Structure formats: structure tokens, C-alpha cells
């Protein structure tokens, strides 16, 4: 599975998204667009990303732009896993 597949799987799991009704693309918006996306969901996503990719995300690295859309989460994980 590619990084983007793994990230999408985590987003679908945590946010309980119906991908049959709305397939995910990099441009699918997240924060501010989904009623499910609250701070509890954001923390659950960060924790799942840490577990899945064995990375540690420092709070200083977090800002709203990471959760803008699916592609921005994937880009964040790619930055984290290549540094």
C-alpha cells in the first residue's frame, strides 16, 4: 500500500466516511467541511498516523493547513517519513 492509500484508509476509519457515496481524492476537503471533523477526530487521526507510520508528531508541527484536504494530510506524512 502506498502512503496515500494508508492515509486514506485512516481517514475513512476515523471519520467513518462513506466512500461508496463519495470516493476520496486528494482534493476532498476535511476540516471545516465535514461535521465529523472535530478536535477529537483530529487527535484520533494524528494518533493513528503516528502508529501506522511510526512517527512522532510534535504539537508545534500542527496547524490547520495540514487538515485542509486529503492531499495535504498525505503531503504532511510524506514530509515526516522522508526527514
Amino acid at each position, binding site marked *: 500500500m502506498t502512503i496515500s492509500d494508508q492515509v486514506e484508509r485512516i481517514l475513512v476509519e476515523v471519520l467513518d466516511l462513506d466512500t461508496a457515496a463519495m470516493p476520496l481524492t486528494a482534493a476532498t476537503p476535511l476540516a471545516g467541511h465535514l461535521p465529523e471533523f472535530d*478536535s477529537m477526530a*483530529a*487527535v484520533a487521526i494524528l494518533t493513528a498516523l503516528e502508529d501506522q507510520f511510526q512517527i512522532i508528531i510534535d*504539537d*508545534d508541527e500542527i496547524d*490547520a493547513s495540514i487538515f485542509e484536504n486529503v492531499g495535504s494530510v498525505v503531503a504532511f506524512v510524506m514530509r515526516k517519513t522522508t526527514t
Partner: protein
Amino acid sequence: MVMTPRFVKVNGRRLFCAHFHNPRVPPRFRVLIAPPFAEELNKCRRILTLVSQRLAEQGCEVLFPDLFGTGDSAGDFRDASWKGWGEDWAALDEWLMQNSAAPRPAYLCVRSGALLLSVARGLLNDFGRARIVLWQPVLECERFLRAFLRLRTVSDRLAGRAESMSELDARLRSGQSVEIAGYELSASMAAEMTPLTLDAAHLAGCAEVRIMEFRSSPNPVMTPATSEFVDSLQREHIEAIGAAIECEQFWATRDVVAPGAALSATMLALA
């Protein structure tokens, strides 16, 4: 099936409990629920009510308490402690034993509710006959506490304000409380939670343990930490079964409609 709302006074504290029973079926298990922490309890309240109803219909007596400082019980969250919760929960276990015809105890522990087994260790009087069902148990509270503190740092960051985990840690260490998602976490409670764990030694002597992990992806597998926990129970000669079940993560997700897989697995575990 009958649900009787009642206040039970234990250790000088009035605790609200929903008491589910079925007058037509002699009960097999008396089930005491160990509720999850803070906002997770709100998200789980509906499924816990549903599972209590279903279990009562199939012949269990169920007590679903609000711990001190939560739900409709007396007290403020900031004055609660895990030590007090453990003592109260054990006292409710005793109350249920005195007031139920069911021959065996069972504990349905949700997320961090599993840690009450560790806190109340030695206070549960009929532990040798107990069947324990753990829903997505929190085994290490330090990591769980960090995720809870993150609710505040992350929502601040998403709103463009900067607050770091180390600032929150420093405030707690200096004895100040911290408000997180509407819950005032006292410095003493944070200090209690940091070293709290659930391991095989805490469950030694019970009859059976059923551990359920819930993942919403198809063909889920247990996380390595939970598999290792199941193995450690078996090494202690505890009859333990773990399973990963395809189901929404209802403690973290808003508006979960029907976590049917969690309900049916739990009814089977307490049949």
C-alpha cells in the same frame, strides 16, 4: 426488560445508575459497566444503553453507573480521583451482588474503564467467578492522557493559537488544573493517570476475559499491543480470547448510528 433509574449511595457519594433487568428471565450474569473517560463517555452513552437493554433481554442484570463528578452523579469532575472511582466502583459491585439473584459477576469495561480493574484490584469480592469483557481497552494510561491533553493543544493549533504540550505539562506539574474540551483535569488526577496500567497481574484469578478491538476496515486484525496482552493473560493461565471486529470506532466518532457488530459480539460474550 425494565430500566430503573436510581441513585446508589456509596462511600458517602450519591451515584446515578441505570439498572436494567428482566423480571421474566432468571439472570445469569450481573454486569457492572466500567464507563470510559470524559467525552468518550458521551459518545458511548447510546451504545452502552443499547447493549444494556439487549443484555437484560437475554437474561443479564446490568448496572450502568455514572462515576463521581460525571453524568448525573454528585460531584464535580475536578474533584474526582481514580482512587475514589475505583473504591466507588467496587462498592457498586458489592451493591449489585447484594441486590441481584444472578450467580456470576461480569464486568463490561469500555476503553479507560478497563483501568478501573487495576485501581479496584483486591476490592472485588467475587472476582474468581468473574467474566470480563474489555472494549478497546486502554492498557497504558500515560499515552491515553497525552491524547486527552492533545484535544486542547490540537484544537488551539487548528484555531491558530499556539500552545504546546510542554506548557500544559508545566501547569499540571505546578499543581494547576487544566481545562480540556469542557473537563477540568486536576493536577492530582493527571499525576494519578500517568503511571496507571492494566496488565495480566491485575486480572489474575478471574474466570474469563474477552477482549474486543473495533476497526472499521474489512478483515481487521488486533494491534500488536493487544495481541501481546492476550498472550500475557494466557501465560498467567487466564482463559482469554481476543478478537478484532469490523465496527465503527464509536467512542471517537460522532453520530454513530448502529454499531451492531459490537452489540452482537458482546451479547455472545455474555450468553
